[in-house]
């Protein structure tokens, strides 16, 4: 059990760092050389159609990726709290269920938003193209579907744990 607590303490620090870095890196990708190529990896259909990226298109792209990344950051931040809780030996409290539900909800929101984010990015990246060469790409990947399943699973697990914690609290009041 001591090993799990030590591992959780490390994971809490790692996920908290990732939560802070993730939105920052997603914004920085728009400015560093080769960053746009990394963004376009997720949008293979748009890759060939991207011309000059700048102005309102760039701002919209940054806003969309930052908003999407902030959902991942929130999920990472919540998981950091969960790990921190376990590292302190607090395995079974009402917070566990609530945090798992929040994490599930965030992952679900991320997955549901993904096709819309990709569509918005395709517009943002091609908005500076001449009329007729602008794109609106709509796609759903297996990654999004997996994320929906994981998000829903975390939601249900969170609900079950919250209910179990409530029952344990109830039980503790029986002498």
């Amino acid at each position: 059990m001591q090993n799990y607590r030590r591992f959780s303490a490390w994971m809490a620090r790692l996920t908290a760092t990732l939560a802070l870095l993730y939105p920052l890196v997603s914004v920085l990708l728009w400015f560093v050389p080769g960053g746009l190529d990394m963004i376009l990896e997720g949008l293979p259909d748009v890759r060939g159609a991207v011309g000059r990226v700048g102005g309102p298109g760039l701002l919209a792209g940054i806003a969309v990726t930052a908003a999407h990344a902030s959902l991942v950051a929130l999920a990472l931040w919540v998981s950091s709290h969960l790990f921190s809780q376990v590292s302190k030996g607090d395995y079974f409290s009402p917070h566990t269920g609530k945090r798992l539900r929040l994490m599930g909800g965030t992952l679900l929101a991320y997955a549901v938003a993904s096709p819309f984010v990709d569509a918005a990015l395709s517009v943002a990246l091609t908005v500076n193209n001449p009329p007729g060469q602008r794109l609106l790409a709509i796609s759903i990947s297996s990654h999004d579907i997996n994320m929906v399943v994981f998000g829903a699973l975390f939601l249900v697990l969170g609900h079950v744990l919250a209910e179990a914690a409530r029952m344990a609290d109830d039980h503790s009041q029986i002498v």
Partner: protein
Amino acid sequence: MPIIVNLDVMLARRKMRSKELAERIGITEQNVSALKSGRVRGVRFETLERICEVLECQPGDILEFRAGGPPTQTLADL
């Protein structure tokens, strides 16, 4: 549930302190205190059995139902 716990009355009749009862029935003094003031959700038959054994009484001497009384208060309600 207007269930009244008369454990304090029985303890007074037997001239026994909560601490001694707690020690003899094997629960904490805090739990005896919570039970005395009715701030618990329930009592195990096992605990009730031990209380009755130590205080030489019947469950009815400890627990009483009063219709129309205030709902039973628990620690969670406080």
